[in-house]
């Protein structure tokens, strides 16, 4: 069998072989400490970290909006965990909400927020609170600009807002030092357009990698003050808080899978060019 014959066979490679290789490349690095990851923190991530770090301890809370569903959880939940660890370690209060249209971000937040708060012994409704889901994201964003308590009359667990100590001083965005939206959809753009522009709120974003290209113009224009992009952003934030988690583990998988895909693209093109020359 000549090299060209081999390349021709490569062109019609069974897709199940590609699937099997991808599975191995994704799963094995995630559970092994290989390959090593040497993260350099990007400016976008550092900006987001600095903006959150500047929030005074035990003061007004960072609003953390879980605007994603389980499909994006692999990329965005590591960000949520890293940011919560940063806040709770520095005694920065956190107010969780969810405006993603399907409401499933609320289920994710209800699992993540109490778990990380327990790690740091932070008290619910004093150091953190989760207000749950509101439909119609844009209107909810605008309503919060006038009255937070009217937008969320109870928290996710049914506690009246007046009984939540964290909410005592919160009337509208004037008492919110920053909003971090974790999003895989256009909700992030709405945060910039409405609370960001109308009420002058500091907007930070944590985005799925595929959505970064859409939002970069808003970061460059200064409308977004800091941005975490995909697993890389999560891993960078984990480095900043010195707590490698699933973002860093995911980066290992991503690294191997990306190189595997690039290798396949190169091999496919070599085979294509070689066999094309032969047919001529």
């Amino acid at each position, binding site marked *: 069998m000549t090299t060209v014959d081999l390349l021709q066979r490569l062109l019609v490679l069974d897709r199940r072989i590609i699937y099997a290789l991808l599975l191995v490349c994704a799963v094995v690095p995630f559970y092994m400490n290989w390959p090593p990851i040497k993260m350099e923190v990007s400016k976008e991530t550092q900006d987001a970290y600095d903006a959150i770090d500047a929030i005074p301890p035990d003061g007004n809370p960072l609003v953390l909006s879980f605007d994603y569903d389980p499909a994006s959880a692999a990329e965005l939940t590591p960000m949520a965990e890293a940011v919560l660890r940063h806040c709770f370690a520095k005694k920065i209060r956190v107010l969780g909400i969810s405006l993603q249209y399907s409401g499933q971000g609320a*289920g994710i937040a209800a699992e993540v927020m109490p778990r990380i708060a327990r790690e740091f012994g932070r008290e619910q409704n004093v150091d953190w609170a989760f207000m749950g889901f*509101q439909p119609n994201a844009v*209107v909810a964003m605008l*309503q919060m600009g006038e009255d937070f308590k009217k937008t969320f009359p109870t928290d996710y667990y049914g506690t009246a807002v007046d009984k939540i100590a964290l909410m005592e001083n919160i009337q509208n965005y004037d008492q919110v030092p920053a909003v971090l939206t974790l999003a895989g959809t256009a909700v992030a753009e709405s945060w910039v357009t409405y609370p960001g522009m*109308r009420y002058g709120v500091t907007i930070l974003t944590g985005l799925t990698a595929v959505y970064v*290209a859409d939002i970069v113009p808003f970061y460059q224009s200064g409308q977004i003050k800091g941005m975490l992009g995909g697993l*890389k952003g999560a891993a960078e934030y984990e480095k900043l808080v010195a707590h490698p988690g699933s973002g860093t583990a995911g980066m290992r998988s991503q690294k191997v899978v990306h190189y595997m895909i*690039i290798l396949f693209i190169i091999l*496919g093109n070599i085979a294509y060019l070689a066999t094309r020359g032969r047919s001529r």
Partner: protein
Amino acid sequence: MKTQIPLLICLVAGLFMGLQYFIPAALPVYNRVNDYIQVVTAFSLVLGVVNLIHRHIGRMRPSGPQRRRHRDWPFSLAALVGLVVMLFAGFGTQRGPIFQSLFNSILLPVQSTMFALLAFYLASAAFRAFRVRSVDAVVLLVSAVVVMVGRLDDGGALGIPWLSRQILNGPNLVAKRAIILGVGLGMAATALKVVLGLERSYLGSGKE
């Protein structure tokens, strides 16, 4: 009247929401309108649930000359059982451990799995379809590889992360800004047409 009243409501609401931005005294009315929108949205959610139940019960019911169920009726049954179980778990336990366990153990892995399948299709498609057939294709391929490596922790010595940022902050930014501006102007023009009653497709054809 059937057409004129909705057009009038649209005109008044559209003009008000446009002008309130410049009139601080209109704030209480603006807040009230936002409340109305939330109420309408809540109704649309109820409508969605009713529509879902209606559709899936229709699939489970025997119909046609042979009185046969739709071939996918077991999926409809699963959808309805899921709806009822989550409703009871949510309302009955104040979103307690049962609701959260169902969410964490079923919905989260199922949806994540569905999305993860994309990686397999993507890898296969990249291998089969990403060919250097023209100069444009070469530019696209090189950009894709640079941005892919730019998302990793490697390539610093070769300047790939820098190059990746240049692609994102250069050509990508220019194209995105053009799209954003185009979409923005299009939205403004469409909104104006709706408010002025020139665009009436939202009223339906009137034949029903």
